[in-house]
C-alpha cells in the first residue's frame, strides 16, 4: 500500500544511514586503508604512512595462521555443540512445555542479564583449581593430578558454547514454534515413525532457525577473544587475542587492520557460502 509521497522512506532512512555510514562504512574503509600502511621512517611508535604494502596481509596471515585456524576450529566446535544442546531444548520449549512456555523462554534469556564476563569468570572459578569440580574428579581418579580443566582448549570451547547458547536457542525456538503441529501428526498418519518425522518434517521446517542460530553463534565466536583470555592459556590464543594485542600492546595498527580485514572477509565468504548451501536467503 502506498501512503503519502515517495520521499518519506528516504527521509526516515536518512539519519540512521548517515550514522551507519559515518561510523560503520567509513571505519571499515579506513581500516582497509590502514591495512596497507607501513611505519614512517624515523617516526614515533604508532606513526604510519600509506605505501600500499599488500604484503602486510601475507605477513599477517603467515605469522598468525595458527591463531586463524584455531579461531575457526573453536568457533565451529562451539557452534556444533551449541546446536546440539540448543535444538532439543528449543524443541522441548516449543512443543512440550504447555502453559510454561513463556516462563521457560524467559529463563533461556535470563542468564544474559548477569554480565557475561561475570559468568565467564564464574566458570573459570568453578572449573579452576579452587572450585569443587576438579578436586572431586581428582579424588575419584577420573582425571589425573596434573590435568586441569581451565587453561585448556576444552575450557575455551566450553565457555564459548555456554556464552552463545541463547543466540542459538532463540532463533531455533522461533522457527520450531511456527511449525504447525498438525504437519507432524500428518507425517505420523502417513506411516513415518518418530525419527523419520523428525528428519523429514521437523528439521527441514526448522532450517531457517538453524541457519540464523548457527550464524549468530559462529560469527561472534570466531572474533571472540574474551573466552580465550579468561579460560585459556597462551596455547589457545585466537585471532581476536592477536588483534587486541597488536592494537594495544604493540601499537601495530596496519597488521591489526590487515588481520581484522582478513577475519571479516573470511567470515563473510563462509557465511555467504553457508547461506547459499542452506538455501535460506531471508535472514533479516
Amino acid at each position, binding site marked *: 500500500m502506498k501512503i503519502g509521497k515517495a520521499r518519506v522512506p528516504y527521509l526516515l*532512512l536518512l539519519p540512521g544511514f548517515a550514522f*551507519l555510514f559515518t561510523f560503520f562504512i567509513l571505519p571499515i574503509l579506513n581500516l582497509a586503508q590502514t591495512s596497507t600502511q607501513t611505519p614512517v621512517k624515523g617516526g614515533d611508535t604508532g606513526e604510519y604512512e600509506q605505501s600500499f604494502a599488500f604484503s602486510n596481509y601475507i605477513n599477517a596471515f603467515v605469522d598468525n595462521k595458527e591463531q586463524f585456524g584455531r579461531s575457526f576450529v573453536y568457533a565451529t566446535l562451539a557452534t556444533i555443540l551449541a546446536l546440539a544442546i540448543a535444538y532439543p531444548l528449543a524443541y522441548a520449549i516449543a512443543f512440550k512445555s504447555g502453559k510454561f512456555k513463556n516462563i521457560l523462554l*524467559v529463563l533461556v534469556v535470563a542468564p544474559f542479564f548477569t554480565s557475561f564476563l561475570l559468568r565467564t569468570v*564464574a566458570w573459570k572459578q568453578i572449573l579452576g583449581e579452587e572450585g569443587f569440580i576438579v578436586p572431586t574428579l581428582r579424588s575419584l581418579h577420573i582425571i589425573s593430578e596434573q590435568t586441569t580443566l581451565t587453561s585448556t582448549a576444552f575450557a575455551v570451547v566450553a565457555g564459548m558454547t555456554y556464552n552463545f547458547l541463547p543466540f542459538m536457542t532463540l532463533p531455533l525456538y522461533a522457527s520450531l514454534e511456527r511449525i504447525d503441529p498438525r504437519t507432524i501428526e500428518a507425517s505420523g498418519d502417513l506411516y513415518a515413525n518418530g525419527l523419520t518425522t523428525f528428519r523429514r518434517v521437523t528439521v527441514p521446517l526448522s532450517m531457517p532457525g538453524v541457519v540464523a542460530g548457527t550464524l549468530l553463534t559462529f560469527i*561472534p565466536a570466531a572474533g571472540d577473544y574474551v573466552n580465550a583470555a579468561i579460560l585459556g592459556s597462551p596455547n589457545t590464543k585466537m585471532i581476536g587475542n592477536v588483534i587486541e594485542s597488536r592494537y594495544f600492546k604493540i601499537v601495530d595498527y596496519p597488521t591489526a587492520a590487515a588481520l581484522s580485514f582478513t577475519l571479516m572477509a573470511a567470515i563473510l565468504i563462509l557465511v555467504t557460502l553457508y547461506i547459499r548451501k542452506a538455501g535460506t536467503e531471508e535472514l533479516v
Partner: protein
Amino acid sequence: MSQKIKDATIPTIPTKARISRWFGRNMLRIYMIFGFTYLFIPVAYTFVFSFNDSGKSNLIWKGFTLSNWQNPCGAPEVCNALGNSIKIGVLATTFATILGTMIAFAIGRYQFKGRSSSNLLIFLPMATPEIVLGASLLSLFLVFKINPGFWPTVIAHVMFCTSFVVVTVKARIASLDPRLEQAAMDLYANELETFRRVTLPLVAPGIAGAALLAFSLSFDDFIITNFNSGTLITFPKFVYVSAARGIPAQANVIGSSMFFLALAIVIAGQLVNRKKAR
C-alpha cells in the same frame, strides 16, 4: 464402570517396559532440566558468592555475610564503573531506538528503490565480528584525533545496537495487519492521526522490546567498549580487569541485582500484556 472390569481389561505392563516408556515420554523434560541447570550454574555461583565474606579476592568461600549487599559500592571503582555503563546504556539505547525505529518503518512500510541494499546495510554490522567493529571505529577516531572515551563509546554502542533495533521493530511491523491502518483512515483519521492512534500503539511493544535488547547489549558489551573507551571504566571492563586477581564480591552483588531487576521487568511486562489481553 466398576474398578474390577477396568483392571481385568487392561493388561499389565512389565516394570522394565514401564520404566523405559516413562523415560521415552519424559526424556525431553529431563533434558530440559539439565539444559537449564547448565545455563544457570554460573548465575547461581555468582549469586552465592555475592554473600561471600571474601575480602578483596572472591575466589574461595570464606563465610556468609550480608555486608556486600549492604554496601555494594564498597569496592573501589565498582559503582563508578556501573554508573558509566548505565549512562552509556541509556544514551545508546535512546539514540539506537530512535534511529532504528525510523529505519524499520521505512523498510517495513514502504516499497522504494534501494530497499534490498538497505537490508544489507542493516545486516552487515550484525555479520561483522565485534572486534572488527571496535577496531575499525577506533582507527577512525584516531585519524580524526578524537580520543577514546565516553562519547566515542556511546557512538560505538549506537552503531551496533541500531541493527538489532531495526530487526526487532521490523518484525513487529511486519506482523501488523495493514487493514488496521486502512480502517483508521476509513474512519476519518489522516496519516498523522493514523500513525499516532493506531500504528504507534500497536508497534510500541516491539519498540519497547528493542530498547530492552539494545540496553542489555550495550550494558553487557566488552569488546567494542574496550577499543573505544580509553581510560573510562565500564562494568564489564571492571570485571575483565579484575578477573586476574579475583573479582570483589560487590561485582557479584551488582551482577545478581541486574539479573533480578531484568527478570522482574520481563515478568511485569508479561503480566501487563496478559492483563491487557483479557
